[in-house]
């Protein structure tokens, strides 16, 4: 399973490296979201600084939707899914591999967004390790949930409109816990911030487990 996951992740990332969709579309989109939020809230530095963690996580969520849509689109080419099934690769491995590829892209998005809120919104992280752990856990959870829902809406003509409706409410706990944890990281309130990791951790674990269990049945004929 793990070897299969590695193979699939490598394949997805290689396709990404050659097509550069994430680089030229997802990353600029994330920055654009931050700038637009700045316009919406006005140039007052205190407002922006207070809102920054929430805006950061909203931008991450939107980028996740884009990244998973791209990840699903890779498999929707003529006969691609059949090829993947015929290759004898464990469906759980496919799931983990695709999730890993999305996670790596999300890390890139978050690095850029982190730099973005520091530069644009003048945010200073007091306890950076807390923000880092929260981001790591959230990335795992978001990519697992995203890939699972991508498979759910794969092959549907209305995928582009359906996927955000399905996946954004599911990701609401990550938005809540992530932005609370980052707010705590900004103010340095470690104890209250760390308690939010108790939501991000189980979210990641639950969606990894559900994905490993249900990705197979989804692929049977879909």
């Amino acid at each position: 399973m793990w070897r299969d996951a590695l193979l699939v992740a490598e394949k997805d990332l290689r396709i990404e490296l050659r097509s550069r969709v994430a680089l030229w579309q997802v990353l600029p989109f994330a920055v654009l979201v931050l700038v637009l939020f700045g316009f919406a809230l006005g140039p007052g530095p205190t407002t922006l600084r207070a809102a920054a963690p929430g805006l950061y996580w909203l931008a991450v969520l939107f980028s996740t939707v884009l990244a998973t849509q791209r990840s699903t689109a890779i498999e929707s080419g003529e006969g691609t899914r059949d090829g993947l099934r015929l290759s004898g690769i464990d469906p759980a491995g496919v799931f983990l591999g695709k999730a890993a590829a999305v996670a790596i892209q999300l890390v890139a998005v978050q690095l850029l967004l982190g730099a973005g809120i520091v530069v644009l919104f003048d945010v200073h992280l007091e306890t950076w390790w807390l923000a880092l752990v929260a981001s790591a856990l959230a990335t795992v959870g978001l990519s697992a949930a995203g890939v699972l829902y991508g498979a759910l809406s794969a092959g549907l003509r209305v995928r582009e409109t359906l996927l955000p409706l399905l996946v954004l409410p599911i990701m609401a706990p990550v938005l809540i816990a992530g932005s609370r944890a980052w707010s705590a990281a900004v103010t340095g309130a470690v104890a209250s911030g760390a308690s939010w990791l108790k939501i991000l951790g189980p979210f990641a674990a639950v969606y990894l487990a559900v994905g490993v269990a249900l990705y197979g049945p989804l692929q049977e004929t879909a």
Partner: protein
Amino acid sequence: MNAPARSLSRWVGAAALATTALTVWLGLWVTPPAKVQGTLVRLLYLHPPIAWVALYCAFGVAALSSVLYLWRRTRSRFWDRLGASAVEVGVVFTALTLVTGSLWGRPTWGVWWTWTARLTSTALLLVLFLGYLALRRVPADPDVRARRCAVAALVAVVDVPIVSFSVDWWQTLHQRGTVLNPGLTLKVHGSMAWTMGLGFLAMTLVFVWMVLVRYRIEALSDRLGDDELEISLSERWAEGAMGTAVEPTATVEPAAVEPVAVEPAVVVEPAGGRP
């Protein structure tokens, strides 16, 4: 749909109507106004029962039937239809929960909406299951659609505890459970308790009746999808037979309601799903 099921749904419907009418009568005319809440308390004969149906009955049934559909040994279209019916009724009840709660909240708290744990997670639940219904409306092969919907329902149900935990940490205005509080001591008294209990029974019966009816519609529309193809095919053949002047009596009656056994085994899955 066979006769016993139809008469069951009729009986359940009658019982639901009777208990609901009784609840309305008791709630509006017989029970006294409460000490603190005054006449507003009457909304509470309906709001908790509706929430109970939405959050536990409907989505419990949906989760259970999704698991049973996904498990190969119990896989059958029955579970798919039951799950879909339960979710659809559940969405209606969830929306009603929010509306009745909001109506109660405005005079009690002074606001239509507060960002408390229960309100927020109920609203999120509504959106989650609206997504399920959206997914279900997308035309697809029935088996594929059933599998997708079962997974979507399961994933949504799994999300519910996480959502409620994450929003629970803001807990501010909303009351703790009154009936199902730890220790299970009933804090409602006398005729009010009876009325509320009756409300629970009435809403559960309404739920069961609606699911029965919804299930029947789903089953009938599936059958329509299958039969329509066969009927049109047989009509087409009848035309062809007329054209070549081969004895027209040999072909199948076009208006036959009974699904006719058509000669070349027509096992074409209706690719577009339901009309």
